């Protein structure tokens, strides 16, 4: 182990960073695979079914554990149909454009007190700008396919993402005000000292707005009008098949994991322990670490599935109304309240 560490620290920095990038990317892809399985299981349980339980049940232990791999192999073997009247180049590029930002955003994610691939100062802005680039893939896919349903889905998605990005940005303005920094690791550190200092306590309205806007940004139910299978078949990816479709699927779930992780970082203290300040300083449960981030992330990820199983799809004009007329005013009011709190020294940021 010590030899390994010695070799590791003797490597140049760009090599170490590359190894970390590889590890994080593979981890995200694997997480996506098991998130899909978990979603199908959760939906099954909510609907009193069993969910996938055939592939890879080893001695009946975890039935269905290899289902995602079976699905991927199936999709890989299928034919990728490119419509003859489509814009072929953009049609092929669009899935990659959706996928890349979902992975690139992990570069600034503080995974652990000592582990972040790129510890940049404007990390929050980097995340915001990348998540807003992801919508190009959806728009281009819808346009390039040269299909009415796909185009309608793309237009819906564009308007929705632009609207909810504003609410999301305003919610993050509150986080930045409280933390006094744009660096994600420092935002987590600003929430140190127990659950009472986590931002969701002090910025509760912004927390709710962020979670709702996060669901809308990822085009998930109940805001999945871009897909809207009951009205426009499958929305922007109606013409995609095989592995091209799988890339959209991958991007959607990678975005879900990303938004869950970001919610944990911004509002629930990221890798901080919830027992911090309650237990003695040396207690293992009070120590910060990746496992806490993972638990919080997992909770929000499961919530995504829970919403999908619970809520009916919003009507399009209702989505717009919720975004522009309710979420944005709520954030504006709470930012004002927060301004007064900062001025009068109320809250954790008075330290």
């Amino acid at each position: 182990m010590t030899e390994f560490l010695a070799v590791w620290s003797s490597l140049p920095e760009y090599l170490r960073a590359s190894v970390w990038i590889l590890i994080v990317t593979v981890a995200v892809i694997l997480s996506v695979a098991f998130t899909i399985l978990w979603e199908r299981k959760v939906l099954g349980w909510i609907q009193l079914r069993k969910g996938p339980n055939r592939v890879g049940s080893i001695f009946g232990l975890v039935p269905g554990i290899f289902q995602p791999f079976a699905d991927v192999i199936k999709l890989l073997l299928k034919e990728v149909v490119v419509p003859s009247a489509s814009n072929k180049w953009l049609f092929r590029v669009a899935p990659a454009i959706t996928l890349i930002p979902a992975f690139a955003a992990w570069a600034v994610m503080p995974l652990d007190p000592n582990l972040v691939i790129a510890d940049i100062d404007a990390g929050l802005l980097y995340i915001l700008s990348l998540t807003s680039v992801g919508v190009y893939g959806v728009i281009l896919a819808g346009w390039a396919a040269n299909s009415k349903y796909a185009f309608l889905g793309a237009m819906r998605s564009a308007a929705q993402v632009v609207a909810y990005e504003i609410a999301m940005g305003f919610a993050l303005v509150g986080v930045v005000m409280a933390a006094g920094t744009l660096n994600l690791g420092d935002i987590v550190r600003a929430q140190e000292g127990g659950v009472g200092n986590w931002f969701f306590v002090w910025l509760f309205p912004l927390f709710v707005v962020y979670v709702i806007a996060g669901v809308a940004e990822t085009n998930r139910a109940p805001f999945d009008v871009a897909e809207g299978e009951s009205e426009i078949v499958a929305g922007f990816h109606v013409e995609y098949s095989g592995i091209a479709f799988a890339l959209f699927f991958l991007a959607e779930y990678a975005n879900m994991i990303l938004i869950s992780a970001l919610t944990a970082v911004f509002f629930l203290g990221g890798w901080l322990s919830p027992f911090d300040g309650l237990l003695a300083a040396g207690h293992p449960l009070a120590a910060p670490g990746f496992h806490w981030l993972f638990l919080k992330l997992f909770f929000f990820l499961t919530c995504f599935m829970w919403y999908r199983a619970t809520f009916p799809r919003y009507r399009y004009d209702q989505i717009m109304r919720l975004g522009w007329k309710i979420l944005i005013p709520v954030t504006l009011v709470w930012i004002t309240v927060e301004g007064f709190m900062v001025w009068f020294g109320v809250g954790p940021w008075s330290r």
Partner: protein
Amino acid sequence: MFVELLFYGFSAILLAAALGVIISRNPVYSALSLVLAFFTSAALWLLIEAEFLAIVLVLVYVGAVMVLFLFVVMMLDINIEEVKQGFTRYAWLGWIVSLIVIAQMIAVFYAKDFGIDATIGPVRNPVDHSNTRELGDVLYTQYVYPFELAAVLLLVAIVAAISLTMRRRPGLKPQDVAKQVAVRREDRVRLIKDVSREGGEDPR
């Protein structure tokens, strides 16, 4: 050396993308070329260590402005032939403007004749220097009034744009959400006698 290589690489892409904006026949390709141009100029700004501005460029122009641009361009069925009419008629104006711009760019090479080279060049900052903080310091102290004025101006523009496009057409039946939410069961449901049952008792 490596940085210079990156600079020339990005500059070449930037020029190609900018050219693509004006010469491609498909307006969607033009918009996409503009997106690429924004990305590469952001990369160039990163090279001169203006990371805040670079990220904001991507956030504002690529993330918001160009999405709306693309949205409009895709919705409109632009007829290129129609746009091209009158193109030659105003060519002389275009030539004059471009000549002025080229003259200004050439003038940059003779900066010393204007005494501009007397100012001190930018100083390289240490690695842990935060130019986000630096920008915020200047923006909210020294330039707070111009900043606020610009913000108010933008707000006025938003209000004006919305009020221009808001038309009260007759015959519209908009929904009043407050009314919908305030509806009670008694307003909508009326229990009538169930004649199929003997005695017609209340089904409750």
